[in-house]
């Protein structure tokens, strides 16, 4: 049982170290270094998709296929939960 604490602690320490390093190395908060793709979407959302809401334009038009996947995930979860609580044959 002690192994769990030793290895778990070690793993946690290593992960903490690298996460803090990456947090400090990420670009400054509020000043993204590279915004090409997003700026394109902001500029063209009205002309290309007709939606006023940029986020909805991304969700349903530019990345619509992700949304199909997301809807599928929810569908899967419902099917899974219903399968788990179905009536079993006696």
């Amino acid at each position: 049982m002690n192994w769990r604490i030793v290895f778990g602690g070690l793993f946690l320490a290593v992960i903490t170290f690298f996460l803090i390093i990456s947090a400090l190395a990420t670009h400054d908060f509020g000043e993204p270094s590279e915004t090409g793709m997003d700026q394109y979407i902001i500029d063209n959302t009205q002309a290309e998709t007709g939606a006023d809401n940029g986020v909805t334009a991304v969700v349903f038009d530019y990345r619509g296929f992700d949304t199909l996947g997301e809807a599928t995930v929810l569908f899967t979860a419902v099917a899974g939960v219903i399968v788990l609580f179905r009536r079993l044959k006696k």
Partner: protein
Amino acid sequence: MFEQILAHSPALAVAIPLLGAFFTPLVGKINDKLRNIFVILILALDSFVVLLLANDVLSTGSIRTYIFGAKEIGSPVVRIIFEIDGLNAFMIILAAILPLAAVIYSWAFMKDETGQDKYYTLMLLLTAGMLGMMMTGDLFNFFVFLEITSISSAALIAYRTNNKFSVQAAFKYIVISTIGALFVLFAIAILYGQYDALNMAVLANSIQYGLLDKIALVLLVIALAMKAGIAPMHMWLPEAYGRAPSSVTVVIIGTTLGSFYGILRVGFTIFGEQIISASNLGVGIALGWMLVGLAILTIFIGVLMALKQNDFKKMIGFAAVAEIGYMLLAFGAALATIYQNSITGAVDISPAGLTALKGGMFHILNDALDISLLFLVAGAIYYVTKEASLNKLGGLARNMKYTTVFFIIGMIAVSGLPPLNGFASKLMIYQSTYEINPILAIVAILCSILLLATFVKVFYAVFLGPKLPKFDKVKEVPKSMLIGMLIIACIIIFIGLFPNLVVENIVNPAVTALQNATAYMGGI
């Protein structure tokens, strides 16, 4: 018409099973038989589309892209793009074979269970997720499909909810895969924050290999290795494989290899130019040897644990762990042989490493088929005897002739004996690793022999030996289960008889695509 289908095949390959999954609950309201036929037809159609696409990509050697929602890609790349090169085409062949065999098999196998509507729905969703994972050219889309596969497989592993072990196995599986998927998402977010791109080809083009990129690489590889069942985090795999219904296990094998594909894509394509480059030569070689070490550990754990297992399906599960180790061994050894050409200055994989790559790639296909066949046999035995422990089985060969033949085929194939497919790929791995380092080859061969010994022991325990009185009334399994096994067995025998044909037409384009990251970047 034909051209039209081919042009839209990447989208159709995912959309057809999804459409089928949404329709299945409605069709199931009408009639059980109709629903089974409907599901099989949907999967057959899907396999047709997938094989059409794979054939086109593999024979022409081109890269096929599909943009969702627009005609042109445009610049910058904002839309989701499916990009299918040789490697993807190679992987989706698996996704075309396995679910179809599994669903035909489940017609009789699942007949006595309740909630079959949802069972078939989840199978179709699992197939769609697996295909999406193997074809997408977008990192976030990859994450979404990864989650679809892990949720649906967790629900299917726990399908027999009255068995406490299967519920426990499902819980372990979903905890491991969710944490893995969250790490993948974190890595994607790091890469996005740096380059403002999610497309794999765009990322591969612009990656600088700075500190953050290295952290993202490590996170991606660790998380996907967790999901692929590589050594330190392999514990969920035999449990999940062993406790799920056999037909489900066959499809989950496909998704596990999908995660393995993810490692290859990340390592060789997105970070490929940086790992295999002159400036990072030492790092690349060290990484290769690290993978070799993990692979040896995986093989050892798999084989040794398989030896002492008492549960039939868990034993095959550990054999599956060992087989994943063989693949990793091949790819790691190939990476360990990178060298700088003294004349041109180009960094490349040595000829021995190239053979290892081919062997490893070939082994992905063979492993999936062999292990699937063995699981289907184990499922058939559970179906007729309701008994999983090896100690309580015996003398089944007399009553179940066909199943015995299928088991022998699977046994010979998985332990790498001459006439069948496992031999072809393992020979390539032995040859190349012997050139790289003889110890590796010796360890690999020894473990293979141990695996054979394990399976011979099982063969004696289950099929030979005295006829047990309690199995007097045991009959051969129903036809649909035999057909499911027959499909896989036929492909195994075909590959075993004509390995060169398969290597030249399927494996070589995949290896070429794996090595050639520039072509993938140029695909968009």
